């Protein structure tokens, strides 16, 4: 048996349901679980909003001193820090499971994941790099961002249920108790940057170069989408105009940073591409990259429209109104000018001591 799971709060249940629906359709043999960083007893969801998938609340999986972890972390950090704890809980609770696969909630799976299943019989871990080839320019995100935040995208990880994967998960858990923060100068970026160590500390880790895996805004430069006559989505390393192009079936697409309220934007985190969409031409302003056809991506637009429709059908408008119980008011550090003034003598001394 293979377990597939995601992690989200109630405000993202439309995404988690969309992922679950796609898995039910394409990989019905997977058992799908939603890890919920929220409290159902507080939210008190009406019957029509209760997903048709088992939900596992984060306070029920035995994370040691979970309350302190909640205090330490903001919502992004907390949602990512619990990932290896969920994996470990699933290993313990389902000892018969042959593999555990994590997907971010904003993913749709399009195919039976036969190659992944096969890879997990031979490898302890399967990771997908953000990009399999150099990025073409210094727009966001580029190779340098990946150096700071992690080579692999942790919106996906496949783990076999074996000793090596257990060791990896235990090491990862230990790191994330205190150091699932974003502090680039200190080499920290939530759960993701740590996983750079996986192929160094562990053998039998597969770095999967399949273009159809974890396609997202960060690898659009090397992947182009088209649809076959039978309606299947396929990925190619070249733009569709090339005759006799090699294609691979699209396995799963990651709609990271996409907002269904802004259907003309690929992701809030990227600056490289835009959809060429006439509806963008409001107020006489030309749409973004109108004069740069190489930066327009009409090929991926239908996927995003499909995703938007599914989110709306899965009650995104209702779910998004539920605030997460673990959310805290953001820390505001006031009196910045006073702080700067106080630091001044110390900084002067440091400069003096560091000069020759």
């Amino acid at each position, binding site marked *: 048996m293979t377990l597939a799971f995601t992690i989200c709060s109630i405000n993202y249940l439309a995404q988690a349901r969309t992922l679950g629906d796609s898995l039910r359709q394409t990989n019905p043999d997977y058992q799908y679980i939603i890890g919920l960083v929220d409290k159902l007893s507080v939210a008190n969801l009406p019957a029509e909003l209760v997903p048709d998938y088992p939900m596992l609340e984060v306070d029920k999986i035995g994370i040691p001193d979970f309350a302190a972890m909640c205090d330490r972390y903001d919502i992004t950090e907390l949602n990512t820090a619990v990932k290896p704890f969920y994996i470990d809980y699933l290993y313990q609770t389902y000892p018969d499971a042959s593999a555990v696969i994590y997907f971010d909630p904003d993913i749709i799976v399009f195919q039976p994941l036969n190659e992944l299943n096969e890879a997990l019989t031979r490898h302890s871990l399967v990771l997908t*790099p953000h*990009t*399999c*080839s*150099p990025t073409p320019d210094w727009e966001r995100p580029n*190779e*340098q*961002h*990946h*150096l*700071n*935040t992690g*080579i692999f995208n942790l919106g996906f990880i496949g783990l076999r249920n074996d000793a090596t994967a257990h060791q990896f998960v235990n*090491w990862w858990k230990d*790191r994330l108790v205190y*150091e699932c923060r974003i502090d*680039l*100068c*200190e*080499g*920290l970026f939530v759960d993701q*940057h*740590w996983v*750079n*160590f996986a*192929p*160094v*500390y562990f*053998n039998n880790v597969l*770095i999967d*170069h399949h273009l159809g895996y974890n396609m997202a805004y960060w690898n659009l430069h090397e992947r182009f989408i088209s649809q076959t006559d039978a309606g299947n989505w396929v990925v190619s390393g070249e733009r569709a105009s090339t005759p006799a192009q090699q294609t691979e079936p699209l396995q799963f697409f990651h709609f990271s940073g996409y907002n269904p309220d802004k259907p003309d934007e690929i992701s809030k985190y990227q600056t490289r591409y835009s959809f060429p969409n006439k509806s963008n031409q409001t107020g006489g302003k030309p749409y973004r990259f109108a004069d740069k056809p190489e930066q327009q991506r009409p090929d991926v637009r239908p996927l995003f429209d499909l995703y938007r429709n599914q989110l709306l059908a899965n009650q995104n408008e209702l779910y998004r109104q539920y605030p997460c119980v673990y959310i805290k008011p953001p*820390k505001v*550090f*006031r*009196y910045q000018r006073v*702080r700067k003034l*106080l*630091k001044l003598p*110390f*900084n002067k*001394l*440091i400069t003096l*001591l*560091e*000069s*020759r």
Partner: protein
Amino acid sequence: MLLTICTLSQLPQAIALGDSFTRHSVHATGSSSVILGLVDDPARLPVGFVSPYPLLPVSELLETTLLAELSARYTPTEFAAACKPTFIAEVFRRYPEVDKLLYADPNVYFTGSLSTIWQNLEESTALLTPFITRNPADSLWPDEKFFQNIGLYSSDFLGFRRSAETDKLLAWWTDRVQQRAFINYCEGLCLDQIWLMHVPVFFKDVRIIKNPGWHVALWNLHERSLQQTENGWQVTGPEGQDQPLLFMNVKGWLHPDQGFFPHQNRLRLSDRAELAPLLATYRQALTAHEGLMQCPVKSTYGQQPEPVVLRGWRYTAVQSFRSVTRLIDQFSIPR
């Protein structure tokens, strides 16, 4: 073939490295199997100095304007890093008969047969060695976060086989380091080295070598034990037992201020008496080239100042001041 890159002051080490390579290379074809890349001005060489190995000055590789630009942009350390892929590509170009090329920092010293390395290159296009191969599982420094800052693979030793893939790798790497070989952890930059993080993903047939007999150095001695046997030095570590010691790196070992870990506190060399004969051998190898010790210390290229390594009370004071400023930044004032 072996390539190293050095300044004039590093020449004794570079020549000792070349000698060690020649000694352990079965297929060595005379002196031309070692190339000394010079990131310095050959006009400043001591009068009458004859190099045992061909010198390749950086001025022969880069056109004058680019050379001046890089020199103005970088510190000497960054400058050497920014030139490394260009040197490697140039050696492949100048010596068309060379199929396999090793790059080693002048602090590297070969101690065992190279055949294992060549054999690995038969089956791959590039070889990388990670700094550490296991979680150190302690609270000492350098910690795992710092290894993330500098990159997990050392750029002090690299192996390449001539191939289209290697050409692609070197072209890409050259492009990246000419603009972005700064040491700036907040920006995700660290010399030529951190770019290697992409190499096993972007390029085919790159091999990560974890064998404990490769690249024994200050930063991995805590996970390796060495033993002198009648068959030479043998190393045991997390990824292998009694492996022949192929090469070591004395960076930061002979001179604690050198390299990335001047404040490392994981290893006390005084606790590792078994290493003394190894270091003695190395020092002996250097004395043969003592005549060069008067070479100018300051290199010609890299006009930005190197950061100062603080010791003693100065280091302690700066550490304390930094923690005070951090406290001032993070102190939350209730409304």
